């Protein structure tokens, strides 16, 4: 196959490209330029968009002996990922930009361009496994390295997209990938993992959003509606957040308080004790199925945030919506995040969390 290997400049995508070469594919390395101004995004060892990262990716491609190009996807990224991120936060939700990037950029804009240019597939360094079922359906499974598993941020991919995707690292642990990179002489073998949002240079999401959206003062209130303090913008807060609330006076019972609710119009942020964060069921919109949509209620597990734990649940498809009954309560679930549905290790599909509910008697 003719394969585009998306190379971020990190160790994972470099080894993924190397494995695609070893598998006998005709591989072309492509670094995605996602920032309109490469200098404005995070630089240094952790980024995926800096000039240094582009250089690292180029070096890795040189070492693999494959052609290498930079594709400018900055417009698509700004329109579909960055603007969406801002809009979601200003609506009081908590988006996952990595998932959005996979859905709209890596396995859409990039894949479509690659196919039009005569390539057959896109390979990335994501940790997930693909298997073809007896009926020809392509199944996506969790990676064997559960600490690195990225099936959650790939949970939005459809059969069409998976049919043209390669994840060469899904059967390997990160430690082994680093060893393999070193053995192959790839310079970035010891480059630290990236964690933060790539377009927020210093990891200060709240500061970045404040800069983009401007101050939008509101109140932080407790469950009774007592105003605890004023804030500069509700988008600086996330459901379930505990740190950085700066409430001054402790709660009456002395227990820590968490963000329970964000009301985007008034900007009111409600805080309260952890038990008020418990969620027993949730609703999801815009479901995407990795194969056929389930026709009846599904006993399964769901994951409700990146690197979050699995929850046993019953999922019911209701038209274009999804209802998820959790068998045990989950805590700090933020609308805007994805609910990815698993059957064992297999990804069944995903939906965007629109609403969370707590049993009144809880």
């Amino acid at each position, binding site marked *: 196959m003719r394969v585009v290997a998306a190379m971020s400049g990190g160790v994972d995508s470099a080894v993924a490209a190397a494995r695609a070469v070893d598998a006998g594919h005709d591989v072309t390395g492509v670094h995605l330029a996602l920032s309109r101004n*490469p200098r404005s995004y995070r630089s240094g060892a952790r980024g995926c968009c800096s000039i240094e990262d*582009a250089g690292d990716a180029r070096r890795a491609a040189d070492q693999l002996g494959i052609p290498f*190009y*930079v594709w400018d996807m*900055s417009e698509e990224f700004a329109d579909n990922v960055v603007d969406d991120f801002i809009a979601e936060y200003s609506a009081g939700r908590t988006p996952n930009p990595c998932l959005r990037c996979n859905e709209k950029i890596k396995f859409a804009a990039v894949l479509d*361009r690659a196919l*039009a*240019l005569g390539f057959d597939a896109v390979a990335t360094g994501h940790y997930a496994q693909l298997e073809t079922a007896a009926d020809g359906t392509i199944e996506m499974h969790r990676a064997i390295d559960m600490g690195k598993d990225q099936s959650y941020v790939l949970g939005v991919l459809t059969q069409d997209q998976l049919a043209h995707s390669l994840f060469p690292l899904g059967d390997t642990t990160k430690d082994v990938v680093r060893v393999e990179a070193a053995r192959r002489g790839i310079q970035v073998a010891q480059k630290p993992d990236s964690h933060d949002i790539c377009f927020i240079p210093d990891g200060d999401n709240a500061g970045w959003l404040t800069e983009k959206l401007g101050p939008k003062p509101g109140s932080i209130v407790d469950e009774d509606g007592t105003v605890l303090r004023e804030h500069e913008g509700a988008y600086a807060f996330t459901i379930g957040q505990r740190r950085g609330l700066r409430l001054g006076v402790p709660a009456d019972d002395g227990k820590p308080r968490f963000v329970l609710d964000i009301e985007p119009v008034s900007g009111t942020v409600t805080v309260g004790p952890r038990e008020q964060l418990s969620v027993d069921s949730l609703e999801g919109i815009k479901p995407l199925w990795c194969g056929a949509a389930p026709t009846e209620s599904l006993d399964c597990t769901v994951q409700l945030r990146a690197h979050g734990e699995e929850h046993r649940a019953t999922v019911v498809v209701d038209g274009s919506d999804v209802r998820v009954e959790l068998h045990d309560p989950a805590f700090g679930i933020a609308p805007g995040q994805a609910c990815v549905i698993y059957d064992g290790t297999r990804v069944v599909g995903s939906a965007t969390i629109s609403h969370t509910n707590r049993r009144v008697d809880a």
Partner: protein
Amino acid sequence: MNSPERSVYLDHAATTPMVPEAIAVMTEELARTGNASSLHASGRAARRTVEEARELIAERFGARPSEVVFCSGGTEANNLAIKGLYWSRLAQDPARDRIIFSAIEHHALLDPVTWLAKHEGAQVDMTPVDSAGRILIDELRASVDAAPSRVAAITTMWANNEMGTIQPISDVVQIAREYDIPVHSDAVQAAGYVPLDFAASGLDAMTITAHKLGGPVGVGALIIRREIDATPLLHGGGQERDLRSGTIGVALIAAFAKAVDVTLARQAETVVRIEALRQRLVDGILQVVPDAIVNGDPLPGPDHRLPNIAHVTFPGCEGDAMLMLLDAQGIECSTGSACAAGVPQPSHVLLAMGYDEVAARGSLRFSLGHTSTEADVDALIAALPAVHQRALRANLVRTTS
């Protein structure tokens, strides 16, 4: 996988292969020891090589040997010229703080000018160009006339590196003469393809570099009149007329001179041959992609266009997609100027010529040189239809998604 011997190289304006004679001279000189500034026999031998090279280069470009200042290449020569002239003129007369430059200069000139504006308080005045990429001489005259006593220097490249459009240097010089304003020209792209006579041109400073005319990368020269004061950028041993310091690169300079010698001796016949090849290339492109647009000045000759550059817009395509598809078949060309991260930016030259960003992104530069053959051109034309179709499709996907 591309192998170098199989590649169809159509990017001579980026760098052209060294002529074998220059490789031979350089190899020979590399085996020799001797600092050209040393006083012993080895040093004197090295110095002799350098001075003979200087004399040859001076002679071939209509300059005096003492006017040839060797340096690391075009970027350094341009920096030395524009910063050196600006600072020395300003030191003589604090009112002279303006630099007039053209909109289509190479980044090696554009960026030092921008830097002077940002960090040294220079007032900069950009001369616009017409749709062929030639400066509007009346605009230049108007900006000189506005405040002639405040102009520190004028700089206009001899021939543009993307379009090949040749600039009206004698007109620029004539305007500058009236007010005794020094004129610099970046002739990097012109050298080897059009006759260059420094003295006859009336220029005060001119940039040339070895690797565009069959010499090695890493050596070039600023040809600058003796009477002109320029402030040095590099301070040290003052090896090159106190204008440029650094141990003299004997082997590089010897190879530079040999390349000048060989290339200029063959220039007249090379130009005829390459102009014919370019015509074959342009005709071939228009035959397989009828809506392609050949940019710049259509007329050949030393007042119009370099013989070796064909700059083509492919409507509805992205240049970088076409470049990649051609590269996959061993055919090498350019989209224009590349930026630091390798992200193709729309060319400032095309934008200055009045093209929009979409057209500017959809263009390729094919440039020929002394090793180009009909087979190279034919290989491009044979590959182009399929490449063009794919690029059209890829762009459609992009603009409709």
